[in-house]
């Protein structure tokens, strides 16, 4: 559950995107990690690169390593960060 991916550099985080957002941007991204990076800052960087992330951002919840986390959560290298659009299971 560390989200560590053997094929990825340890100085990155893995970003997972789902549903419409995943279809538009891609389901998995590798993104550079830096000291002190938070979920919010990661979202800023992704939104600058992917306009769709900026559009979805007001509605997504965020999870780190498969658990919901607030946007001020600090990230560690190798973390798996998920952008969770409004769910529609059931």
């Amino acid at each position, binding site marked *: *559950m560390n989200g560590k991916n053997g094929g990825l550099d340890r100085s990155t985080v893995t970003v*997972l995107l*789902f*549903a*419409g957002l*995943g*279809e538009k941007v891609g389901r998995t991204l590798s993104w550079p990690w830096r000291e002190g990076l938070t979920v919010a800052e990661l979202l800023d960087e992704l939104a600058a690169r992917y306009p769709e992330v900026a*559009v*979805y951002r*007001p*509605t997504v*919840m965020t*999870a780190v390593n*498969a*658990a*919901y986390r607030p946007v001020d959560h600090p990230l560690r290298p190798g973390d798996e960060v*998920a952008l*969770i*659009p*409004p*769910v*529609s*299971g*059931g």
Partner: protein
Amino acid sequence: MSREADGRPRWEARTDWGWFALTEAPIDVGTLSAFVTRPEVGAVNVFLGTVREWTRGRRTLYLVYEAYEAMALRLLQTLGEEVRREHPGARVAVHHRLGRLEIGEIAVAIAVGTPHRDAAYAGSRHIIERIKEMVPIWKKEFWEDGSFWVGDQLERIPYPDGRPPEGPEG
């Protein structure tokens, strides 16, 4: 992740009181209700979400479900634990389908077994409400004229204008 007998993927967690799964294979109601039936159980409530053909005059052809599987499975277990805290001794099974589903198929099955019926009803209701609120599973509806991720209109409440958007997915 494991595999069904026919090779379809399955994510599953099972304890002495709970059974949680995400699967691309059809869900068997009898298996779930049998799991939650034990000598101390007198009441079982089962909720099934099934694939409806018509939603406000629009015809669904089929659905596709996608999930953040590891997180969804963990959260289904958490929901089971919430029911156990509220109703000690409850037995809980929750299975959710993934992949393509046809009209009439079971998308989610929730079974809760308790000594008396109040708790069985309350437990299964709690789980379906929480699934729809916070478990990372998404439904894509395919219509004759397009497709649409439910929830994807960027509002927290699907169908804010009372019906699905008219156009195909953009």
